[in-house]
């Protein structure tokens, strides 16, 4: 008897799973770096309006893929991104009918190279970062127009510059699937490579080859992919004072009693220096709105307005204390207008 009821119940469960129904909650996907800010806004927004917001942490690339898959309530309304949407992604969007996309820049995030408080201070230049972590580097000082690549010979920091600490180069950083890694290789590694004369020549001659050479991190054990979990990297640094870690600024900010950030080109990784753009390894954070959903799913525009309000993303709002580095006033105002008017963008 019981078994018969169970079978009936299972058939019923399978039957009422009707496809794509109307929904009354806002669906957000995307970057795990923007996730903490997005969830904070969602929470405040829900408390004020009672409109439900569901935020999913899929990574920037996964977010754009879901976002651009189509229009309709089965697809998300907003995607968070720790980098700008790629041209190819916007084209996929257009191909699938997502023609009206609003781009909103919310603030900045710094990427830091940090080590334990007990370890010696690191003062690096971008070029030294490149020379420490690239798989193959130009031989000698890389002068001239043609690079002679050799497998990275630097095993200790002192091999790069004599007054750096006399310890082995050992870095724990994000894996290739991470947006933080994308930003690190693009800003720090490419930026450092450009400082080498022959790499600069290579960039103007063959930008693809330059990218491949600059972006490939060491595979000889000096760079260790430590997984997506930045808290784990922090704990590793405390246990291994000789190692350095690469991660987002908010983890340095929260753990400043245990770890410290290396200066890059003489600038400390600090809230003010990242906000002003003096710290070289920083990136912009975005979210993208599917304008065609505004008015269909209630609350999308109001959520965006809440996110960009002075009380949230503004310098005195509730997002900076949890690690968002705010936009300069003029740019903040510009994007407040964008969400007010739902201005679409193109690349």
């Amino acid at each position: 008897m019981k078994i018969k009821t169970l079978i009936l119940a299972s058939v019923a469960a399978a039957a009422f799973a009707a496809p794509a129904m109307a929904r009354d909650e806002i669906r957000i996907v995307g970057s795990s770096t923007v996730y903490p800010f997005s969830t904070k806004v969602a929470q405040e927004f829900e408390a004020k309006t009672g409109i439900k917001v569901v935020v999913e942490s899929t990574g920037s690339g996964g977010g754009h893929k879901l976002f651009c898959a189509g229009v309709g309530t089965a697809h998300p309304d907003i995607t968070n991104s720790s980098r700008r949407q790629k041209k190819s992604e916007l084209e996929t969007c257009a191909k699938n009918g997502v023609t009206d996309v609003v781009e909103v820049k919310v603030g900045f995030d710094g990427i830091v190279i940090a080590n334990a408080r007990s370890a010696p201070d690191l003062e690096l230049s971008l070029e030294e970062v490149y020379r420490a972590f690239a798989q193959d580097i130009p031989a000698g000082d890389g002068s001239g127009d043609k690079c002679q690549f050799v497998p990275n010979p630097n095993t200790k920091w002192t091999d790069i510059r004599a007054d750096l600490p006399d310890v082995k180069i050992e870095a724990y950083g994000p894996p290739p699937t991470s947006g933080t890694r994308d930003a690190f290789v693009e800003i720090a590694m490419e930026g450092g490579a450009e400082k080498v004369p022959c790499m600069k020549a290579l960039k103007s001659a063959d930008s693809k080859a330059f990218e491949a050479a600059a972006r490939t991190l060491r595979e000889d054990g000096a760079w260790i992919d430590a997984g997506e979990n930045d808290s784990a990297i922090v704990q590793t640094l405390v246990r291994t004072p000789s190692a350095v870690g690469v991660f987002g600024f908010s983890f340095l900010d929260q753990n400043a009693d245990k770890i410290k950030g290396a200066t890059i080109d003489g600038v400390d990784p600090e809230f003010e220096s990242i906000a002003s753009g003096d710290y070289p390894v920083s990136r912009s954070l975005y979210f993208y709105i599917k304008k065609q959903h505004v008015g269909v799913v209630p609350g999308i525009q109001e959520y965006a307005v809440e996110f960009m309000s002075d009380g949230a993303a503004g310098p005195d709002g509730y997002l900076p204390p949890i690690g968002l580095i705010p936009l300069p006033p003029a740019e903040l105002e510009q994007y407040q207008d964008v969400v007010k008017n739902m201005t679409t963008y193109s690349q």
Partner: protein
Amino acid sequence: MASTEVKTGIHTSPEAARRLARRYRQEAFFQFMGLIAIVLALSALAWLMASIFGTGLSAFRQHEVQITASLDPELIDPERTGDPEVMRRGDYRTILQRAIYDRFPEAADDRKLRLQLMEVYSVAGGTGFLRDFVLDNPGRVGDTVTLWIPASDDVDQMLKGKFDLDVPQELRKVTDVQIAWVRELQASGELRASFNKILFLNTDSRDPELAGVAAAVVGSFYALLVTFVLSFPMGVAAAIYLEEFAPKNRFTDFIEVNINNLAAVPSIVFGLLGLAVFLNFFGLPRSAPLVGGMVLALMTLPTIIIATRASLKAVPPSIREGALGVGASKLQSIYHHVLPLAMPGILTGTIIGMAQALGETAPLLMIGMVAFVTQIPESITTPASALPVQVFLWSDSPERAWEERTSAAIIILLGFLTLMNLVAVLLRSRFERRW
């Protein structure tokens, strides 16, 4: 004569004594190695438990601060409408700020001090508690009320000794003046530690002091319900057919091998299958416990089939023959006699399969159950999270307070797993028949 000497010599010669001693040595060595293996396994388990409980237990207590707030009607409901929707949008942040500045008037004039003072209290918690209080007691608007609100996560962590206070104050999350305020509040009895109800009753939150597992527990429950409803009847029916009715031939052998292989397939594969089939092809909602349960059901199905077949096999043939002998049909003999006797074994296998499903994260990530949800899901189609996913999400958050909460969530998950396994053990010892 010579031949008898040889025969006794086999067991008494010095050589034989050596052989015997060697055999004893081998046995002692084997036992010793077995013991070492057990000790190693147990100490690994003990280490894991000690580290989880060591970091997690402190999360079950939380520090609270008392505030005395004046519920100014101008800020809550200036038109005196009494409408809950108006009251919901009241300016509780200002009410909280006034209450806190009144408590420490010396900080109220200096902007830097004011900001630091607000960081002692949970601002999101304070505004939320005030809002809930007003919505529950609309008649109290205009009164001055005393409430306990959570202390900020940094103060809570500091009082639990999780910060190194010896470093210069600009490197820590709590400054010297904040510590002084906290000590003053403690001395006057306005700051206390109490049992952390929030951890059990609240849903996920961006603020560690307000985060709880309630939505994740309910999400896991719905997913497991779907898993059970789908996999139990199907698994048992498949096992009965294979064991009692199916002819023994190459084809059924092939099916059997495949079921055993299916039990060993990594769970992420089922997640990808769920993404491709349930979400993309059938268009079922993302992040829903329904889809999570369906994916977990695929994973649990082979476990249930294997356990059920083993239990059916253990029922002696005489029971079947007896039933057939008094004129029962094959189906009657199974439903009236064999299945009830096999039930304890079947249920044990099912519960263990379900416990496995409860701890599974990877397939849920693929179908979007890794979501920030602030409301307890109402049905199996509303977006939800699950307990192990909650652990995963919390472990990757920057604030220090998440560390202990992650471990606490693991303890809660382990609690449910232990409970389920206990039920399985009880069922087996209570109802199992031996022949």
